[in-house]
């Protein structure tokens, strides 16, 4: 019965979304206040119902109700409780339900808390939000019902891919989804503003917290996902440019561009049409990220063949939302008033360059990700696009972007002097030159991209603190701090990436127990290999002792885990984090002579990659707090219509 209750709640929520859309539409076009006033409560109730539906599904997963097909396919009674819980969204249907729930809750939050925006624009925004929700509800109810029953119920479920059995990963999708949905709210605001021809600073200020919040969560999600791939796959890499990673990177790139263009719109009333366009693009990227990953089409177009209804549905939704928004943009953008003027050499100018570079990188990633799909759909050729393409195409642009990042924040709005800007950057540029000299002398023969990465990271790291010079630090607004910390984080992350790709040392050997091997500055010895039993796996655990020169030895325990349900084997790397890097150890199989395969990496400063990511997110958080507090203080009394 519980599953049916969940399904009923979902139907009701869908009905309310339809009501919300119709009421909002009529209210906005007829300007009747009674209709407008009815929309907010409907949005809130819709959020509650969607929430009930999702909680029901969680309950079915936690209690392992195998009569529900989705639970049987993705859960097993042997799983630890946390993974039963997280299994709810570890599959296509559950993740879609989660998506629409977050969407509804975000809509409810806008309805409850947004008080500054012009009422008609706000209601138009809520209608747009309902329209998006409606598509997702239809998709769930008609093409992927999470509550479908299975008759007869199986004795045991199929479990979950053991690679995914990891606490960090359990909360990785929700983080990204929250980010995607934040961008959908930004998109709804853009649509609302276009409908009521109200693209201006007020709209930008209403949209900004959502963009910021989404961007923070995407940053965290990508950082965590990268770290997960690094320690879970046991291949020693931290970014593989695989389609799933790209699917989360593309919304982030779009959101980063949007964040900067919204600032121009909110502060200087410039870049109006461009900002609206970017909001549409960012949301499109979220949809692409959500659907392409979950539908499996990224692995092969054949995934559509197995379930054509789902595939067609997805395409139709993409066509309606993105096509509709772009058409609305085409019709309405002509009526958007001219923005303010600015010079090419100015803060706005640097932000425009930032936006262009981000868009170009986004284009490169998008093409690289979709090319195999399109090629397969058109010619039937199978191919894959690998890291060489992405690194050589996007790497140089990313370097230029980071260099611009040093100059942008210290330029004046409207008009600045090029010479003065360069003078202000003298210190960072000097430092960059010194780093260049030092690296070329001490580590000749490193690649050009890592070299430039180190140089740029050093210069930008110093330059990013420049906006704080000569300010009273106690009175500096929080959002300035946020910008400084986030930009510093980018430099830190870049330094980590460059150091990792330039200085990593790798040793791959088959060693007997007790033999010493060297990797970078460490000597490593395999002392023992023992079978152990985990909660739902068995494993072989190596005991590896490492020491640096004459320092104190420390022990690592890499494992090879074997899961019975479903039958899989995973390599659990053992990683020790030291002040100047990480020692990364993977143990493989033994051969018939009693030797064990050992793969050892010494990765200097690799942790900076994720530390930088965390700093970027923290900077975003500071900025968000600062902006929201400021808005609260300056909130105008609510206008009565």
């Amino acid at each position: 019965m519980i599953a049916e209750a969940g399904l009923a709640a979902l139907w009701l929520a869908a009905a309310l979304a339809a009501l919300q859309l119709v009421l909002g539409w009529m209210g906005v076009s007829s300007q009747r206040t009674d209709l407008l006033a009815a929309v907010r409560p409907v949005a809130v109730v819709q959020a509650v119902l969607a929430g009930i539906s999702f909680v029901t599904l969680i309950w079915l997963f936690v209690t392992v109700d195998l009569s529900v097909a989705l639970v049987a396919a993705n859960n097993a009674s042997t799983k630890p409780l946390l993974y039963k819980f997280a299994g709810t969204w570890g599959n296509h249907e559950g993740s879609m339900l989660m998506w629409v729930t977050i969407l509804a809750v975000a809509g409810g939050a806008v309805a409850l808390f947004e008080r500054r925006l012009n009422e008609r624009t706000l209601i138009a925004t809520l209608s747009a939000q309902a329209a998006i929700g409606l598509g997702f509800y239809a998709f769930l109810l008609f093409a992927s019902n999470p509550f479908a029953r299975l008759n007869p119920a199986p004795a045991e479920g199929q479990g979950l891919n053991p690679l995914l059995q990891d606490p960090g990963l359990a909360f990785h999708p929700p983080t990204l989804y929250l980010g995607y949905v934040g961008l959908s709210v930004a998109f709804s605001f853009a649509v609302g503003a276009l409908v009521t021809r109200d693209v201006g600073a007020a709209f930008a200020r209403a949209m900004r917290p959502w963009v910021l919040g989404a961007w923070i969560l995407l940053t965290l999600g990508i950082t965590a996902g990268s770290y997960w791939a690094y320690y879970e796959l046991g291949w020693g890499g931290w970014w593989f440019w695989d389609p799933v990673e790209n699917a989360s990177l593309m919304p982030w790139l779009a959101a980063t561009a949007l964040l900067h263009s919204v600032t121009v719109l909110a502060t200087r009333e410039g870049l109006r049409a461009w900002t609206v366009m970017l909001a549409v693009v960012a949301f499109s990227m979220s949809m692409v990220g959500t659907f392409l990953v979950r539908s499996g089409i990224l692995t092969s177009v054949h995934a559509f063949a197995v379930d054509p209804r789902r595939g067609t549905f997805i395409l139709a939704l993409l066509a309606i939302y993105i096509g509709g928004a772009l058409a609305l943009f085409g019709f309405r953008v002509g009526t958007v008033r001219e923005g303010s003027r600015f010079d090419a050499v100015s803060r706005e100018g640097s932000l425009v360059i930032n936006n262009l570079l981000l868009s170009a990188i986004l284009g490169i990633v998008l093409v690289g990700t979709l090319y195999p799909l399109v090629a397969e759909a058109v010619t039937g050729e199978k191919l894959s696009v690998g890291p060489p393409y992405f690194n050589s195409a996007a790497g140089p642009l990313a370097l230029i972007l980071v260099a611009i990042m040093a100059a942008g924040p210290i330029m004046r709005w409207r008009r600045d002097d090029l010479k003065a800007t360069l003078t202000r950057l003298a210190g960072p540029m000097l430092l960059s030159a010194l780093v260049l000299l030092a690296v070329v002398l001490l580590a000749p023969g490193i690649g050009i991209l890592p070299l430039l990465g180190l140089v740029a990271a050093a210069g930008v790291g110093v330059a990013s603190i420049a906006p704080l010079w000569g300010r009273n630090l106690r009175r500096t607004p929080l959002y300035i701090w946020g910008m400084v910390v986030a930009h510093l984080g980018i430099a830190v992350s870049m330094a980590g990436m460059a150091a990792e790709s330039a200085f990593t040392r790798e040793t791959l050997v088959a060693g007997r127990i007790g033999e010493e091997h060297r990797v970078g500055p460490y000597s490593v010895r395999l002392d023992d290999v023992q079978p152990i039993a985990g909660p739902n796996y068995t494993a072989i655990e190596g005991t590896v002792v490492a020491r640096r020169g004459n320092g104190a030895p420390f022990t690592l325990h890499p494992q090879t885990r074997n899961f019975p349900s479903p039958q899989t084997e995973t390599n659990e790397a053992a990683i020790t984090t030291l002040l100047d890097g990480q020692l990364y150890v993977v143990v493989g199989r033994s051969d018939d002579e009693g030797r064990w395969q050992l793969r050892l990496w010494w990765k200097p400063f690799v942790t900076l990659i994720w530390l930088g990511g965390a700093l970027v997110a923290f900077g975003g958080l500071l900025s968000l707090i600062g902006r929201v507090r400021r808005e609260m203080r300056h909130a105008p009394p609510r206008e009565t219509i």
Partner: protein
Amino acid sequence: MRRLLIWLPLGMFLVFLVVFAGGLIKPEGRVIPSKLVGKPMPAFALAPALPGKPGLSSAELANGQPHLVNVFASWCVPCIAEAPQLRQLAEAGVPVYGIAIRDRPEDLQRFIERNGDPFRAIGGDPNSSVQIALGSAGVPETFIVDGKGIIRKQHIGAINPEDVPGIMSALGDAK
């Protein structure tokens, strides 16, 4: 000029969409139009997946009778969903043969006890080699093989009740 720029994003998106949809919705598209259809069954000889039940080899599929070969596994949920249809086909006299992918006898035994046993023989394919040779991308999949051992039809995914007539008519054509 400006007008053009305004409509450009929509144009680009539509072009992309058309290319994409065109590639996907081609009639019967490139959608695994199994190249094996019309070709003989690849040669294989599989050991019995269950004690007390015969295994399966490609040779015995070329005995002059049409057969239905079902690629399945006890760990596959859609396989449970299609079990009633397979039983229905078996009761109608269709010779149904199974290939169990990466399965264990005890799991398979439980699967048969719960979902019935339409199979005349089940070959065990512990490492998916026959599955690959058949060009089958997942489980469940069903092949109709005629009396000469030529594959006449490949059905991808579970056999739903509405698919049964199509399967029956394909079997009739394979006679």
